């Protein structure tokens, strides 16, 4: 095989950007749509755009900013480092150099050991064989285009799920399918349109042309049913069982897929239960917890909040019905992690004045999950909100009355992008507390179901874009998770997509995914007699068992 033309491969995205001579790595990143932090605008003043470089480059090794050790390890400033021709320069973007949570939606970590490259589809005559990995989320569809000749990720893309118009949560969509004439077909055609949109964007962004031969999709059970053309109705009613738990591979055309993925062979991750779908199976696959002897907990903080507990021998999974508060749903000024979202918040105890950071650095227009988490933690820490999630009457600084009741002003109208205050009212507080309570209680219920003490959990994986950016101290302050030491948490980003990519690259991993589903027990929390009680215990800041949280926080402070 001939040397590939010069280019810059950005990791962990895997996106290859063709070389443009004389331009900096930062410019290449911008052209390839790779998010990279550069607060000074590329004027090499701030020293924040650090990347690790492998390959021929010059510049960007300013000794005033980088230490000799860093320079030796390949750290460079992207704004000053220029790739040279004659090969591919690999650029790893360091976690602290990631500006926007946006990236987390399409980025995911695969904790699995790198197996041999074993794609299902081998080279055919016509062009490069390509594969598409899809994460079909309730609100977002994300995808990655993979070169099946070497496993490289060629591009990544995402789009809003057009089914949002048929209901924001899964139940609403089932009801939509049941009660709207032709509702099931509408759901399906919208999903297909969204999937084709993602495929189009993937191909547009790809430096390599070829034919899509293989698709691996990970979605929740309702979406998987809709995609497969099966009614999801049974999922809504006791005993909450799906019609299908496995989806035999099929050609795109037979599923109704048009466009470049019509001729591909489609594989859909199996479901664990009505409310724990293939997206979780794919996420587990990426986490690798099924290969460890030590016990792990896996959280997918999405619209439903799934929790899995287990190790290589056994696993048990549930859906917490936590609600989408950390995706910005159910909160008045909530939004997804797009540019303009407040991503972190600090409140001055004395003046109740807030300091915040905004994704993309512009004017804020709302709060995303990590901002919401921070805000609640700060409101509680500063005594503006009591343990019950109510505003305290003493000193109303920073608050005003709104049509939704008393509210805390996070961003004033003058500073916001919308010209209106970004506020957080008592109903928002309650909604976030309910969401965190459901998540925490679900995890406690998993432990109780198998009779395992909390201390035996060695690792906690947090999947979802939110997981990459949450402040663990804030999470502990409000009791989002059981009181585990922060050092045990591992953020995974979009683990579902990572799992789907892994399955594309290696057919053994796909088989692993299939056996994961049949070896993982689905636990229905609605028939778990202890769940409501644990939920009520958790409906408090940080938790009714506040002693354990205090101990965990003290440990964290002492570190």
């Amino acid at each position, binding site marked *: 095989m001939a040397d590939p033309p010069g280019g810059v491969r950005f990791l962990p995205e895997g996106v290859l950007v063709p070389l443009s001579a004389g331009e900096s790595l930062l410019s290449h990143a911008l052209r390839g749509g790779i998010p990279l932090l550069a607060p000074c605008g590329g004027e090499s003043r701030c020293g924040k755009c650090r990347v690790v470089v492998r390959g021929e480059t010059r510049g960007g090794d300013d000794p005033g900013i980088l230490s000799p050790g860093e320079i030796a390890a390949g750290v460079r400033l992207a704004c000053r480092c220029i790739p040279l021709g004659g090969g591919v320069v690999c650029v790893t973007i360091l976690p602290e150099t990631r500006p926007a949570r946006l990236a987390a939606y399409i980025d995911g970590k695969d904790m699995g050991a790198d197996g041999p490259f074993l794609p299902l589809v081998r080279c055919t005559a016509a062009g490069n064989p390509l594969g598409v990995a899809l994460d079909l989320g309730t609100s977002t569809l994300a995808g990655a285009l993979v070169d099946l000749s070497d496993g490289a990720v060629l591009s990544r893309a995402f789009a809003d799920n057009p089914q949002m118009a048929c209901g924001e949560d899964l139940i609403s969509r089932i009801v939509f399918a049941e009660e709207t004439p032709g509702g099931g077909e509408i759901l399906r055609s919208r999903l297909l349109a969204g999937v084709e949109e993602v495929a189009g964007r993937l191909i547009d962004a790809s430096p390599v042309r070829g034919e899509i031969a293989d698709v691996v999709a990970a979605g929740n059970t309702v979406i998987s049913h809709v995609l497969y053309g099966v009614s999801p109705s049974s999922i809504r009613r006791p005993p909450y069982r799906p019609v299908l738990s496995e989806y035999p591979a099929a050609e795109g055309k037979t599923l109704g897929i048009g466009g470049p993925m019509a001729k591909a062979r489609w594989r859909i991750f199996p479901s664990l239960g009505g409310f724990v779908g293939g997206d979780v199976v794919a996420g587990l696959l990426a986490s690798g917890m099924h290969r460890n002897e030590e016990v792990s907990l896996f959280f997918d903080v999405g619209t439903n909040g799934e929790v899995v507990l287990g190790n290589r021998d056994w696993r048990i999974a549930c859906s917490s019905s936590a609600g989408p508060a950390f995706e910005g749903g159910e909160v008045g000024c909530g939004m997804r992690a797009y540019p303009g979202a407040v991503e972190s918040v600090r409140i001055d105890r004395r003046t109740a004045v807030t300091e915040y950071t905004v994704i993309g650095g512009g004017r804020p227009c709302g709060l995303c999950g990590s901002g919401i988490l921070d805000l609640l933690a700060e409101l509680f820490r500063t005594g503006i909100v*009591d*343990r*019950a999630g*109510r505003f*305290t*009457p003493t000193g109303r600084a920073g608050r005003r009355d709104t049509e939704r009741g008393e509210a805390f002003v996070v961003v004033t109208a003058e500073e916001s992008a919308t010209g209106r205050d970004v506020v957080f009212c008592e109903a928002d507080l309650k909604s976030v507390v309910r969401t965190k309570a459901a998540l925490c209680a679900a995890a406690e219920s998993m432990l109780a179901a198998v009779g395992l003490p909390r201390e035996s959990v060695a690792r906690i994986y947090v999947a979802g874009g939110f997981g990459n950016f949450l402040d663990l101290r804030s999470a502990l302050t409000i009791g989002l998770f059981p009181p585990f030491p922060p050092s045990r948490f591992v953020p995974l980003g979009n683990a579902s997509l990572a799992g789907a990519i892994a399955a594309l690259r290696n057919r053994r991993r796909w088989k692993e995914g299939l056996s994961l589903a049949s070896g993982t027990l689905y636990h229905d929390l609605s028939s778990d007699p202890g769940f409501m*009680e644990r939920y*009520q*215990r958790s*409906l*408090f800041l940080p938790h*009714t068992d*506040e002693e354990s949280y205090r101990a965990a926080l003290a440990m964290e402070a002492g570190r």
Partner: protein
Amino acid sequence: MTVSPSIPTFPGRILEVTLPAGPGGSPVVVGGQNALPLLPEGDHPHAPAVGMEIRTGPEELPPALAEVIGPFSGNPAALAQKCVSGWGARFLFLSLSGCNPDAGGQGVQDGAAIVREVLAATATPVIVGGCGDEDVDGRLFPAVAEAATRPVFLSYAEEKNYRLVAGAALAYGHGVVSWSPIDINIAKQINLLLADLGFPGERVLIDPLTGGLGYGLEYTYSIVERVRLAGLSGDAMLARPILCHLGDAWKAREASDASEPGWGDSALRGRRWEEATGLACLAAGADLLVCRHPENVKRLSEAAWR
């Protein structure tokens, strides 16, 4: 042959709480134990105490009550004296039900005046209950706290009003009853909230909401047992004396209906209904019982051993 029974021991001890009396009266002290109720094991420095309820609002009394406390209707101070000196109540629970807009609608100052009258009529410890209307109680508790001529307990503080009730009690040296709707977690939560305000634990009682016999008593029973076990096991926020208010027993049809021939005498049955409710509460771990039938003060005290 000797038998060594398994007697569990507990690391915790229930906080001792004193309901203060007036000059010449006997305070009620409860708590202090480190063992389960009714059993000859551990320390039980104080026996549970049985008190009586006095309601200021008009109400239709069940037959079993009408004949004994009916004659005192509209005269809380006289009833208070009778409860203490005639029937042996160790404390009084004065419900200012007459201040409820739907039940008489006495003013807040009228309520406060009744509290003063009752405190003057007897030296026994008093717990003052609100009228159940959030707005009125919001004004009533501060007024009562100010008007009371000696320390009382205010009943009750819950998540919605705890700042107001505890604030009023703190300012004038009163105690509070922390209330939760048959839920051990909410019981702990309200006590944590009170602790956050700096309210002293030795002036707090736990009211877990007592369902009447046949109408939710089993839920209360288990919550009282669990609160007590948690307290004895070292959960400081739950290691507090528990007050069970038996008033709901009288809301049961079985406690008053005289039309069922197969149910026996309704007056005896009504009294038994309250008695059985109270006995179950004692078995679960209650430290204070509030009853309405004079005979039950004696009856329940028979089982209030230590």
